[in-house]
């Protein structure tokens, strides 16, 4: 029975994690690795929830525990109202997992056959499975590839098929672990729209997403937990996370002429961005607490022999908030000690 029709479970959150800790033994004498250092999470039904963190933050470990693929070292995790350790079989009836870069299915099967096969592993009745597979193929733009063998698909096409597999059982809770990894821009946009449509049309459906793409998290997620070194550092709506860091205006200047050792202008710290070799210019980044100071900064630069060729401004982004909270970007390694 669906949780949505079981009053006892309907009140339970989609995911509830308390003091969840997972430690991996070190191999060949290396020290043990603390992947999760005791995290708490509560994801309500109907939410699209994002888990953002740099490589090695513990996102995938968390997803694996919630998908009954790993035991936690300590703590508790409940999915759809069921304990992931003691009621793993019940949990599996209500979830699906899609991992970016995975290679599901057998190369000898075509797209339609592969999706049908997985529908059978999830107990979708035969009468429903075929039409649903066809609907998914159509909705995800795979119609032209429905009869193509999987081993002849490109990485992006295969990724779209994997994505479709996640929906074939119409799970109550869907885990998307880097689902758009390796996809082109248009395909990724289509999948994001599909997720939003699915959550909107299927009341109570929940998505837990991990992604490396800030814009994706910003567009999709109702709430985001920022995780690093196995700890949840912040958990809120994208707008609230942006507000939580210092505000102000982010300014990017395209400049010609670079004085040696320029680290501040008129008392405002600056950082260098990407050069533009084709124009012989550089990008200079700064943040102004008061946007009204911009003309003063431009005059100060001119006084130091720097010609400003272009000015662009933007508000605080989710990436700014992430860097402020974690101390480094998503793609960066460990932050300096």
């Amino acid at each position, binding site marked *: 029975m*669906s949780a949505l029709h079981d009053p006892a479970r309907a009140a339970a959150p989609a995911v509830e994690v308390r003091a969840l800790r997972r430690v991996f033994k070190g191999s060949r004498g290396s020290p043990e690795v603390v992947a999760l250092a005791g995290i708490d999470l509560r994801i309500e039904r109907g939410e699209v929830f994002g888990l953002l963190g740099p490589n090695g933050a513990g996102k995938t470990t968390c997803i694996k525990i919630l998908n009954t693929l790993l*035991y936690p070292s300590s703590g508790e995790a409940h999915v759809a109202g069921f304990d992931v350790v003691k009621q793993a079989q019940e949990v599996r009836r209500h979830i699906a*997992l899609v991992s970016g870069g995975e290679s599901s299915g057998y190369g*000898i099967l075509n797209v339609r056959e592969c999706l049908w096969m997985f529908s*059978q592993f999830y107990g979708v009745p035969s009468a429903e499975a075929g039409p649903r597979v066809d609907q998914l193929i159509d909705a995800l733009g795979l119609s032209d590839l429905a009869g193509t063998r999987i081993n002849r698909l490109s990485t992006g096409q295969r990724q779209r098929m994997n994505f479709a597999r996640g929906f074939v059982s119409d799970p109550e809770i869907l885990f998307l672990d880097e689902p758009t990894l390796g996809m082109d821009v248009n395909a990724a946009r289509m999948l994001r729209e599909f997720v939003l449509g699915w959550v909107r049309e*299927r009341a109570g459906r929940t998505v837990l997403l991990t992604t490396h793409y800030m814009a994706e998290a910003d567009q999709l997620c109702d709430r985001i937990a920022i995780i690093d070194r196995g700890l949840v550092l912040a958990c809120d709506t994208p707008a609230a996370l942006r507000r939580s860091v210092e505000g102000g205006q982010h300014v990017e200047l395209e400049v010609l002429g670079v004085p040696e050792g320029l680290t501040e202008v008129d008392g405002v710290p600056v950082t260098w961005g990407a050069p533009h070799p084709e124009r012989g210019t550089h990008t200079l980044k700064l943040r102004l607490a008061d946007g009204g100071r911009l003309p003063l900064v431009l005059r100060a630069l001119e006084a130091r022999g720097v010609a400003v060729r272009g000015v662009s401004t933007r508000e605080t982004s989710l990436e700014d908030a992430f860097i402020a909270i974690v101390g480094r970007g998503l793609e960066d390694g460990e932050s300096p000690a």
Partner: protein
Amino acid sequence: MSVALGGGARVRNTGWRLFVQAMRARAWVRILGSLRESTWIVSDAIFPNLGMCAFVLMYRALGAPRSFEALAIIGGILTTYWMNVVWGMGAQLYWEKQQGQLQLYFAAPCSRLAILSGMAIGGLAATALRSLVGVAIGVFVFHMQVAPFSPWVLAGVFLLTMLALYALGMCLSSVFLLYGREAWHTANALQEPVYFLSGLYFPIRTLGTFGAVVAGVLPLTLGADAIRQVLLGPAAQPLLPLGLEALGLAGFTALFLWLAHVLMAHLEALSKREGRLTQRWQ
């Protein structure tokens, strides 16, 4: 964007219905795969029969009784199944892991035994088609001579043999996965000794009492001997009475099925504890 998947609550099968569904789907992949990949027909149906042909020709050149040729033909046909059990069943979960697919099975609500049973049924069905090549060679090329036999008894003995063999394959799949490449090499190293001890190309009694007792612990030995008894009668130079061999095969089936269940549960617990079996690089 409308996902157009329709509204309403979803009904999903559970229990035995889900078991049968998952088993059928996994078996279907095997059968479909074997029909679509023509190179497998050469490697799995033609090549295994070359050894059988060599033995038949050798017996013929030496002027051995015709029953020896039939012994080798029956052994050659069973070789096709044994190869499928070792490499198609035993190595399958290892391959699934290497492809990153094992975790999808572990995260699915269907029983792992349903997946294994599907692999076994699909492998058996696909191999049955290929073994027909061996039968055809035996009947039409070498004009194999058999004694009068009951098709029902033959079907029963064959079924028991296959059950024992594929239940062993279900165990091997977990063992291969647990020990990875080491198990792979071990199986590779054991392939020829198993052929030898199973007496696939000669009467098992030739090994003497001790050799026959040792060989008797292999389901392949009992199966080959039982099928030969049905088809050749006393000329098969049987190891044990047919009834006893059938009982042994049934016992092997029960033992291996239980062991497969235990090993799979152990494997899953180990995977969750150590987190290394669902990662292809670990």
